[in-house]
């Protein structure tokens, strides 16, 4: 896992975006779920224990939601090289991907409502290898995402299928 010299980072706003996304998920999904499980468990185990456990879990989740995106941002690098697109990501589970330009079948940019507020987009790169995207770059400035999409989708060549 080496750094490429010309590797770029994402837009710094991505950290804020991811924090917001994680906090929303925490509020809407995780906390209600933990409380529901806690209520169910309270009938079996002592309720003080359950309360402490639920509060700890929520706190840990909250801390992760704030801190993790910064780590993710720090771990993410991408580079468009002569022959391929390099994407490197992951904090605990690291992943390094190289997608040759001539194997790219199509490139998508996607933008959800939260991403629109921050003016960011996601870039998805598809090859013939599978149903899902082979490479994805989240948290790009929309203009940069569109530039990359046009740049990557213009290169042709033998697709090896």
């Amino acid at each position, binding site marked *: 896992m080496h750094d490429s010299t010309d590797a770029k980072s994402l837009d710094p706003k991505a950290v804020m975006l991811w924090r917001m996304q994680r906090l929303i998920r925490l509020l809407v999904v995780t906390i209600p779920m933990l409380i529901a499980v806690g209520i169910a468990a309270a009938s079996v185990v002592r309720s003080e224990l359950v309360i402490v456990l639920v509060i700890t879990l929520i706190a840990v989740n909250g801390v992760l939601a704030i801190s993790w995106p910064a780590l993710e941002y720090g771990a993410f690098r991408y580079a468009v090289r002569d022959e391929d697109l390099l994407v490197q990501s992951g904090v605990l*589970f690291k*992943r390094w991907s190289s997608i040759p330009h001539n*194997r790219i079948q199509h490139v998508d940019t996607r933008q959800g409502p939260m991403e629109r507020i921050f003016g960011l987009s996601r870039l998805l790169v598809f090859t*013939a*290898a599978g149903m899902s995207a*082979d490479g994805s770059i989240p948290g790009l400035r929309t203009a940069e995402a569109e530039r990359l999409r*046009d740049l990557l*989708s213009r290169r042709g060549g033998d697709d090896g*299928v």
Partner: protein
Amino acid sequence: MVSEDDDKPEHTDEIAIDELDGDDKPTEEADRPEPHVPDESPTRPFQRPRMSSPSVSEAGIDPAEIGPSVHDFDSVGMHLEAVPQPSGNGNPLMTDPSIELPEPLDTLVAGGMMEADTLLTPDTPWRSLHPVSLAVNLLPRAWATVRNMWPILLFIFLGGEGFGFRLAELMIVLIFTLASVWNTFIHWATLRYRMHQGRLEINTGLLNKQSRTIDPARIQNVELVQNLFHSWAGLVELRIDTAGELSTEGLLSALSVEDATELRDQLARVGSLTSSDDESEVIEPIVSMGIPEILAFGLTQRTIGTVAVIAIVGFEFMNQAGPEVAREVSQNLQPSTIIAALMLAFVGSWAVSALTSIFRFYGYRMTRLDDAVRTTQGLTTKRNVEIPLSKVQMVRTDEPLVRRMMGYGTVLIETAGLGVVEGQVRQAEGMVPMVEAEELSAVTACTVPHANVDPWTTPLRPAHPRSLYRAIVAASVRACVFIAIGFTFLGYLKWLTVALLPMALIGAWLDWAKQGWLVTPNSIVSRRGFFNRRTFILSRDKLQSVHVVQGPFMRLHGLSRVVVRVAGSQVSLPETGAEDTAWLEDALS
């Protein structure tokens, strides 16, 4: 939305043929009975699977707006106009032999229309399936549907408390069977195909009409299937796979043998297949299998699943016979009886497995054509698969322990086409069931000629020594979980489960010791497993993308895993250390 102009350079392959004959478009346009187009286009739900040229469907809405890109509109026009008007428009159910081509056209086509001819003719007549094929297909298809629902049927006949309950299940079976009969009928009644301007066009559907255009150069493999009924009637089913969806993209069931051969030859002239004229170039059959080898293959297939099914069915029978009988039987049950029953189950499932492989692989023969491999196999249902070598994505050899000890291995050829055969996804398009160990390298070499590597004589690079630690830890954890389960649920037998631990450790070591990888200028080889040794060989010019993954524990040991993806599948290499990974990253990207 990408504009139309942006879109074009990407699809040069797709429209190349259309552009070739762009010259004669104006005359065609004059000839065509224009009024049909506006009449029909609104009634036609455009479910065109040709995703690659969105401009076509746009063109269908208003032909007048298109102007310069006539060729796109034109291909739509052809579809619309060429649907046989009397039947295709109003009621396709009224199809009868009158749709059959008039004699002169038929002879024209049968007389061997060359590639150039199909490129230049303004309109090629549509052809339908063989009239008899409906009768021939109905029984086998209905049977296949019923057979696929055997768990339900078993339940109906063995279990089932009340009569109403059984009736409901029978209804389900009946509905599915009827649906399959209906589909067979629709396929037969509405399917029209033709080879037009270098493309294969297939129209089907009654309510949801579908017109499909297949570029012969994109065909991954062609399969000719002839079951017993087909061969009695002199028919053959043609299955054409491209790299698109999960089903066979072009299914023509069924054509007369002559029509099928002719269509295949027409496809061969434009695409990457080999026509029957070139059969003389057949190099000696690479592999052929005798009955003993087929039997050996059947016997070395995994049989534990079948044994489980037989055991469950036997148990169910005992319960049906009556609770007293079951109790009596279980009281008189000696360990020797249990072992005998298990042996019987194994022998039975082996017999079934051997029998099915005889049916599947009887007369197996694989031949190498100029730039394709062709396999022929089957006792009652004959299959003839042709795979162009340029489309082979990966070759995998499976050498399960028993088969390996007998001196054999299995070769599987994978292309980007995924087929669904009799309800199950078939990933390997070509399979060579039994290859003698010393011939494995020759067979793989001829299926991936570009790879130019022989993993049976070339020493492979081993997996990193530290990955053994990881394997051992993982195996111990897994064994401990099983031991814990054993201790909670089993009686005095629980001490037996402790034996799992040393077994798991030995297994982990053997598995690690047999791993290997190799990257040459042309190929990538990865080998895994001791009990079921698998070797993946792929040609580097098929590589779609390269990934390196590293989990937290792998990082602890400085290991990482390289995963290479080709169209249709992916292969992971054994775990490698930092230097090897860095080297692989450089070499593969």
